[in-house]
């Protein structure tokens, strides 16, 4: 059966994506640890398929301010990744590195912004590398783009992409990092083109 959209993913498919999430989060934790020079650990990430409106609630409500980073995937797997960083996560990062927490993402200075976008680069690259190494497929990523706005508006970008395929859900990876003893969360939304998702499962020998 050909896959038409992510509504059709089974538990088994989600398990595969979870494994990718595991490897990606592991990679991300070690890169993050190098960047901020603090021990960083990761709990098992949750991979979820959520309705658009559930996804927004899951992120804390539509009007919460978040930083979104978008990268385009090209090569054997095509699609987008959107990494969502909320204030608590960003603040914990800058406090760990510079001793300066962030009260408000909208008024972050240039240094904090560039540091947080570097964190975003590392995270998205970690997941892309996880997929590439697990499948032996070649994936390139575009220069990331960033926006700081209401989380609902950021989420509309992947939601629309999924909606175009007839899906009413988004594919989510929810990560909890433990940095220096405190837990912070971030979220990655993976929007593969449907053909690429088939390609991914096919390479891993998982029936679609």
């Amino acid at each position: 059966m050909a896959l038409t959209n992510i509504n059709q993913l089974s538990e088994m498919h989600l398990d595969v994506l979870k494994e990718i999430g595991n490897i990606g989060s592991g990679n991300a934790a070690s890169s993050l640890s190098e960047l901020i020079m603090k021990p960083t650990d990761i709990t098992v990430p949750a991979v979820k398929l959520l309705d658009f409106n559930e996804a927004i609630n899951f992120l804390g409500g539509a009007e919460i301010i978040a930083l979104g980073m978008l990268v385009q995937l090209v090569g054997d797997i095509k699609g987008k990744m959107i990494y969502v960083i909320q204030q608590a996560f960003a603040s914990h990062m800058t406090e760990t590195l510079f001793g300066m927490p962030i009260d408000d993402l909208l008024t972050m200075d240039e240094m904090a912004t560039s540091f947080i976008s570097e964190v975003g680069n590392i995270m998205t690259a970690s997941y892309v590398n996880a997929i590439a190494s697990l499948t032996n497929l070649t994936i390139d990523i575009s220069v990331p783009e960033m926006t700081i706005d209401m989380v609902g508006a950021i989420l509309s970008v992947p939601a629309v992409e999924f909606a175009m395929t007839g899906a009413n859900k988004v594919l989510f990876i929810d990560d909890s990092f433990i940095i220096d003893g405190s837990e912070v969360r971030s979220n990655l939304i993976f929007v593969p083109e449907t053909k690429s998702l088939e390609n991914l499962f096919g390479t891993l020998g998982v029936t679609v």
Partner: protein
Amino acid sequence: MAQKIIGIADLNTGKGGDTLVTYALGSCVGISLWDKEKQQGGLVHIMLPSSRENSSPQDNFRKFADTGINELIQSLGLMGSPKAKLEAKIAGGAKMFSTNSTIFNIGERNVEAVRRYLQLMRIPIKGSDTGLDYGRTVVFHTDTGAFEVKATTKKTVIL
């Protein structure tokens, strides 16, 4: 007097002092239809331009500009507000990431589709705040027809 929250790809109606709210429109578009005489109206939050593209029978047809607006017109008709009495206000259709690599600008296409469909239905557009690169929350008051557009770093606009 009630406040009704409208999610993505959804719609609702109200009258008198009701307020209809939809949060954080990004590339999506919020469209209000209002009957001034009866002081009642509705709000729909659409995601995509046309039900003729990319739709399957299982789809939620409120997510498309044409079918979403059409359903709202029908609902208001049942409340005693025929199409000829309605006027529209619209907001949203932003481009959240400034990428040139995205093949097409879905926000702009959504706004065009909404305008085209409203024109086809002969419903005048009395106000709009669309495009650019930021999210918008809409609060629509069904008694006065006031359509507030809020954004994180901009002053609230009342259409």
